[in-house]
Every structure is written in C-alpha cells, then in structure tokens.
C-alpha cells in the first residue's frame, strides 16, 4: 500500500550532489582560465582559453594560435599553468584530508596538520636550508626532499607512539600529534636562533608559496593526490559510520582499526607531498570541508569529492591574489587563505546557526 513512500524513503543518492559537482567543476575551470590570464603580462581570457585548449590532444590541433605571441604561450604554459595546477592540487589534497580526518577522528577541529606532519616537513626544510646539501628527488629540490621525508618520519613516529597494542585511540593520536608538532616547532626555533641569517628564508617557507612550481612537481603531487582521493572516497561509507561512533561501526562489521591505519597512511603521504611542494598552508584543510558540509550534508560520498573541487578552487583564487595583489612582490599564500577564508567562514556560520558546524 505504501510503495510510493518506500521508494521516496529510498532516495538516498542526493541528486543535488551531482549538480553541485558539475557547478563546482565549471567554476574550477573558469578559475583556471581567468587565473592564467592574470599577471604582469596581461592576456585576454579568450587567449588563455585558446592556449589551454590547444594542449588537449586531437581537439587542440584545430585551434589557431597564430595571433598569440610565442612569449605568451610560454608564460601561460610554462609558468602560470604549473603554478595554478599545483595550487589546485594542494588545495584539493589538503581539503580532502581535512574532511576525512574530521570524520575519522570525530573532531570538527581536525585538520591535515593535526598529525604533526607539517612540523616535521618544516623541520626537514629548515635543516636543508641550514645545511646546504645538494640532493634531488623527483624534481623536488633539496628543500622539498627534506620536507617530504621529514613529514613521513614524523607521521611514523606519531603513529608508533599513539598505538596501544593493536588499537589506535583517537585521543592518543590527537594528543601525540599536537605534542610532537609543538616539540618540532621549538626545535626549529632553536635552530633559527643559531642561524639568524636564515630566519627570513625559513619563515617565508613555512608561510607557503607556489612560486617554485614546475611541471615535475605537478606530476609528483598529481600521483599522490589521485591515489589519496581515490582511497578516501573508496572508504566513504565506512567514514560515515565511524562518524556516528566507533562501537556502532564495529557492530556493523567495519574494521575500524584497519581503516584508521589506511587513512592515516594515505593522508600522511598526501600531506607530506603537499607540504614539500608548497610549504605549510593552513586553514584550507580545516575550513573548506566545513563549508562544503554545509551544502553537501555529512555523507562522505558527496563531501569528499566536493571538498576536492572546492579546495582546488579556493586555493587557486588565493594564489592568484597572492601573486597579483602586491605585484611585483608576492604575498605568502597562507596569509591570503586565512584572511580571505575566515570572513567567508564566519558568514557561513552565521547563516547556518541552527545546524551548527557539523
């Protein structure tokens, strides 16, 4: 008798999610094109669109580039595009990790840096700057290489300390991460007091910048980001249930310890990769997931992909401002993310007062 009602009840796939994804992808594309046309050498949006499309196989051959000067082609394709894509990938990676951590640790304050990974990266980078060793790894440069391995080492240490037998209590993870992070920061401060001349360089690195973007780095980060996002999205149902409680998840046949381990490993790799190419960019991983959650709801199947796209858009906008607002000098992108993001976040909070953050 109630077949219609049953069917209504079963409408679980939020068809809105598809629209949100489509709209956000269009916005993302527009951001890339507009950002590519902005800079010290001014291009029209249609020109940058042509240049980008000309690189698409098959389709690109039909585009006539004869009216655009060779130098612009090079500026867009060799300088601006790697930087834009790198910013997008970092934004995507940090947001998706933030979203997953907030669910996994059932803590709205969780962000990608909560495991202390970023402090480890910063210490690695600081050591590289102070020692001046020449070493390269996947086009990362010596600083990036040190940062990457510093981050992974820290994640490993935090993980080892917070393990109790075969279990991984959330409180242990969060406290260990914070403690290790604080300790590493003071080590950096200590190193800086002995090397006054390098303070500025270290400081600027920790604020985050994409000025050293290359296609190599884009490829490097792309591999990590695709893997990480793929794994996290694969576990979206499990994350949903873990959000509602550990015991509940266990009683529904979910191996919570295994999932925690897998997510922590892929997330640490992702954050290490992000930080090693860009420095420490705060705020994105904390706030973008919350913003997205307000439109997508708490289900990770929608939340994670939308966070990816949303994070990329936000980071590209921030980086475009960072390199243009005070040209020819650059503002650290971490400054922009917080200054631009906070007011918007507060606006969303006010608008959603009823529902609260989660």
């Amino acid at each position, binding site marked *: 008798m109630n077949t219609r009602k049953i069917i209504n009840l079963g409408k679980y796939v939020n068809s809105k999610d598809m629209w949100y994804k489509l709209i956000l992808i269009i916005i993302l594309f527009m951001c890339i094109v507009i950002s590519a046309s902005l800079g010290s050498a001014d291009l029209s949006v249609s020109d940058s669109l042509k240049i980008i499309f000309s690189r698409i196989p098959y389709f690109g051959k039909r585009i006539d580039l004869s009216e655009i000067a060779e130098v612009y082609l090079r500026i867009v394709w060799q300088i601006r595009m790697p930087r834009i894509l790198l910013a997008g990938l970092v934004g995507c990676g940090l947001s998706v990790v933030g979203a997953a951590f907030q669910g996994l640790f059932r803590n709205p304050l969780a962000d990608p840096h909560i495991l202390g990974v970023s402090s480890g990266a910063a210490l690695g980078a600081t050591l590289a700057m102070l020692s001046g060793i020449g070493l390269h790894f996947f086009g990362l440069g010596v600083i990036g290489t040190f940062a990457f391995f510093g981050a992974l080492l820290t994640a490993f240490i935090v993980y080892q300390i917070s393990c109790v037998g075969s279990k991984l209590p959330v409180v242990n993870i969060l406290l260990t991460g914070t403690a290790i992070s604080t300790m590493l920061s003071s080590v950096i401060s200590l190193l800086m007091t002995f090397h006054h001349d390098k303070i500025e360089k270290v400081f600027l690195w920790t604020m985050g910048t994409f000025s050293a973007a290359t296609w190599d780095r884009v490829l490097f980060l792309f591999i990590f980001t695709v893997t990480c996002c793929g794994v996290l999205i694969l576990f979206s*149902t499990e994350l*949903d249930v873990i959000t509602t409680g550990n015991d509940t998840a266990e009683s529904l046949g979910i191996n919570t310890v295994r999932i925690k381990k897998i997510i922590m490993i892929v997330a640490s790799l992702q954050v290490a990769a992000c930080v090693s190419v860009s420095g420490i960019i705060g705020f994105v991983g904390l706030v973008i997931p919350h913003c997205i959650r307000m439109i997508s709801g708490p289900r990770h199947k929608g939340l994670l992909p939308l966070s990816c796209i949303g994070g990329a858009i936000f980071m590209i906008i921030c980086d475009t401002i960072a390199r243009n607002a005070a040209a020819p000098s650059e503002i650290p992108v971490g400054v922009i993310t917080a200054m631009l993001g906070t007011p918007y976040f507060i606006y969303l909070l006010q608008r959603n007062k009823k529902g609260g953050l989660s």
Partner: protein
Amino acid sequence: MKKEIKQAKEPGILVDSLSWYPKKDKNPILDKLNCLFEKGYIYGIIGPNGSGKTSFMKNILRFIEPEEGKIVLDEINLMNYKRKDLAKKIALVPQNIRIESSFLVKDIVMMGRIPYQKRFADASEIDREKVKKAMLLTDCYELRDKSVTTLSGGEAQRIVTARAIAQDTQCLVLDEPTSSLDVKHQIELMQALVKLNEKKEKTIIAVLHDINMAAQYCNRIIMMKNGRIHSNGKTEEVLTRENLIDVYDVDFDILENPRTGKKYYVPFSKDKKV
C-alpha cells in the same frame, strides 16, 4: 509454554567457560562464565557496577577477545566469523546514542543495512522495506527526514534502536537502552522489543540497571557479581530477595504489580530501614 519448549532446540549463543582480563592486570574481569542464550527469549543481564556486565557484552559482540574459553554462535566459534557475517548475526544498540553530525534519520537507520550492501551499491528494495519496518516498529517513521542533531534523547534512542533492528540479525544486544529515556519511552521501547521478539523469534540481550524493567520484560535473567554469573534462569526464579541482597547489598521489598501480576522490587538500605 509449548512455544518455549520448541524454541529450546534452536541453536543460540553458547558461552563456554569464558574468562577475560585486561592484559597487564591478572585479576579476571570475567571469570569462567558458562551460560546459554536460547533463541527467542529476552535476556536481561543485571548486576552492580563493576560486576562485568559491560565486559561480558563486549565479548558477545567480539569487541574484545576471550583469554580463555569461547563463545559459540550457531555452532561456530565467534572468533571464526568474518566481520560482515557476524554483523548479520548480532546487532548492537550502544549506550552512547548522541550523533554529532547532521545525518538524516533515514540515513542513520539505513546504515543498519551496510553488512548486506556492496561498496557503492544503492539501497535495494529489501533494504528500504526493512528500514521502513524498523522505523515503524520503533515509532520513528515520522522523523525520517529530520536531522539527527535536532532530536531529543528519547528520539535518538529510538533511531539507534531502529538501525539495529534494520540490521535484521537473530541477536540484538542493548547496552542500558532505557537509561536516557523518560517513563513513557522506556515502556514503549521495551514493548517494541517484546513485539519484535514475538514476531521474529530473536534473541534479545539487554544490559539493564533497572531491576523492575528486567522483571517486567525479560524472560530470563543473568545476574552477575564480581565477574561471575551469580544466578541464571527464569526471571521469577532469579529475582528472589536472597539473590538480590547477596548481589546488590541492599534489601528489597517485593510487591506485586497489580496490572501485570509480575513482581515489583523496592530497594531500601539494609541498615537504616529507609
């Protein structure tokens, strides 16, 4: 009575000299428990704080592993089940029912169907029907499109119960299900369980603090003290004044509930007679 005899042949959960203790501490929390949960009954596990009720429950759910002895479910050792298969046999209504993220009620209840679903698969017609039935049984169908963060404690308890019912298991474990409910919802929840039990011949195991709840609605009582089963059997036979004094260390007046004819227990201090 006929029904009871028939059901006694059905396989259930057999607990065979189960011992459990935290690793470093050698004092057993559970000390050689033996009992049988037969299919079709409502079991109440009662006992004072620290008597091992929760640890016992966690062992039944396989949240922790027995140090000695074993639990056998449908003639297979509990440790040999795959996670998903176990989740099709035993469901839990946890004590902490607060859900912080703003899932819709129907989403939460649908989570009970996860053991039956393939990754990324949509809810099947069967899933939807089970979810709807579970919501109707626990009287929360009207709440289906609400966000769980807006619910009262009683409503949240009913939704979490609905999820466990939607899991469609032969055994349902409840951890102090009535502790956050007002009188009306306490009665409604317990009646829903009785109804569920009548229809589907499930085994229901409830860890309870309220002796009168246990006396009213449970067919069988397992009374625990200091990590051992003090007494075990039919409700009226276990809940005697002697047993209660022995386990709880307070005295009881035993009255009769004029409506149901069941016993009603009024505790008072052994020393002061108040």
